[in-house]
């Protein structure tokens, strides 16, 4: 499998083509595992957008609430938010639990990385605008209400682990059937599949770019599944997306 990674070297940051094995180990072209230590960096540069309510199980859970105040009716357009730069954190770096909370909610999500500016793209053409796929853990402070923008819950420093790499789009023919596994302290505690997306990757790109352009290097997280696990200080979280990669971070006190 071929991917692009950003790795911090001793003197300069390198944008490398990497290859990895079935066990996610970095290897050479003959499949021999390299045992050197890697200092991973965030492998993307653009704006990271998240999408709420894009798994069918989540929509079902909210179904009756959608008819009541403050929502009054179900959402029509994709429900978007931004994970700003202060939240970005690479593979194997810590995520800090703020002093004012005890638990964080994990947010395993497939990240779609844009290859070029996408404006009013049709679902048929949408995947032509994709450079590759990455793993995101859209960490947030648990919150029920979706009424107001939740930047205090979503935009704390280091709340968006992403990486380790961006998998070339040629390695994935169908982004809508990828299994997503979340491990806490090496125990498999949650599974989901992108086949449960309300808007498939193609339709999401189309419906978002209908009203705002996505730029080269931007990341569209296609959604966080329902009922993701919560974690606390000293836990280790791994998010593994079939074919795409595995993203590991430790949770530490602030």
């Amino acid at each position, binding site marked *: 499998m071929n991917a692009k990674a950003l790795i911090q070297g001793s003197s300069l940051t390198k944008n490398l083509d990497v290859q990895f094995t079935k066990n996610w180990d970095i290897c050479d072209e003959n499949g021999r595992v390299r045992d050197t230590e890697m200092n991973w960096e965030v492998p993307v540069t653009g*704006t990271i*957008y998240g999408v*709420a*309510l894009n798994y069918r199980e989540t929509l079902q859970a909210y179904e009756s609430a959608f008819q009541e105040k*403050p*929502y*009054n*009716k179900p*959402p*029509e*357009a994709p*429900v*978007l*938010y*931004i994970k*700003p*730069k*202060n*939240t970005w954190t690479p593979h194997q770096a810590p995520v800090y639990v*703020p002093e004012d909370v005890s638990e964080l909610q994990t947010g395993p999500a497939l990240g779609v990385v844009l290859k070029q500016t996408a*404006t009013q793209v049709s679902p048929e053409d949408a995947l032509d605008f994709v450079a590759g796929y990455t793993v995101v853990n859209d960490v947030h402070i648990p919150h029920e209400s*979706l*009424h*107001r*923008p*939740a*930047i*205090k819950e979503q*935009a*704390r*420093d280091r709340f968006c682990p992403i990486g380790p790499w961006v998998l070339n789009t040629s390695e994935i023919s169908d982004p809508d059937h990828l299994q997503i596994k979340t491990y806490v302290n090496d125990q498999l505690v949650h599974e989901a599949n992108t086949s449960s997306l309300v808007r498939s990757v193609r339709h999401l790109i189309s419906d978002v770019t209908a*009203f*705002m*352009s*996505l*730029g080269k290097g*931007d990341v569209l997280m296609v959604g966080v599944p329902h009922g993701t696990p919560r974690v606390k200080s000293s836990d280790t979280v791994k998010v593994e997306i079939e074919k795409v990669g595995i993203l590991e971070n430790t949770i530490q006190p602030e």
Partner: protein
Amino acid sequence: MRKGRIAIGGSIQEVVQQEDGVQLSDGRTYKEEEVTWLPPVEPQTTFVLGLNYADHASELAFEPPKEPLVFLKGPNTFIGHNAETKRPEEATHMHYECELAVVIGKQGKHIKQAEAYDYVEGYTIANDYAIRDYLENYYRPNLKVKNRDTCTPIGPWITSKEAIQDPMNLALRTKVNGVTTQEGTTKDMVFSIPFLIEYLSSFMTLQPDDVILTGTPKGLAKVNAGDIVEAEVEGLGTLKNTIIAKPE
């Protein structure tokens, strides 16, 4: 001092204001109308305040919030001075929103109100257009209303903070086709600039070129294709742009 970013002669240039014009770093000067204006800052994380003027909140039939109502914008939405904002032909409720924009100059976390201005580089004007036809009650105001391409003109200049004696006492005014439709003062903000810097930096790190759009006072009016909209903030200049029709 006032700084801007322009395109001229096939390149992007940082300029300073000169009498009746701009000066490039190599000394060449141009008249303001000869250059293509870009946003004076390439906004990094951009915070926008909703309902931060009590009169505007009541105009929209809301109580002013008890905690700042903050949303974020992406880079696709920004354009410079004298540029065009696309208005979907189907829209019936497109409004301008004249706002004081605060440009952060220094990294900081847990900043106290008393030190807040140490982290400010300067100020500019933003026009935070909203298309209320697309409002939904999910993360409201949602990005379809507030993060559309070309819908956030910003500029023309960054005026250094030293040139502004009291940013909490500046008149704001919007004119549509030369007629004043919105007037207010930054005195009436619900949450002041130092309060907002303390609040935001209490849970996230602010970085240089982060921008805070501090909200708009009362005086909404609809805009239509062909309208020329001028947003003014006392001491910062006039940010002008034109509404154009965009077929769906």
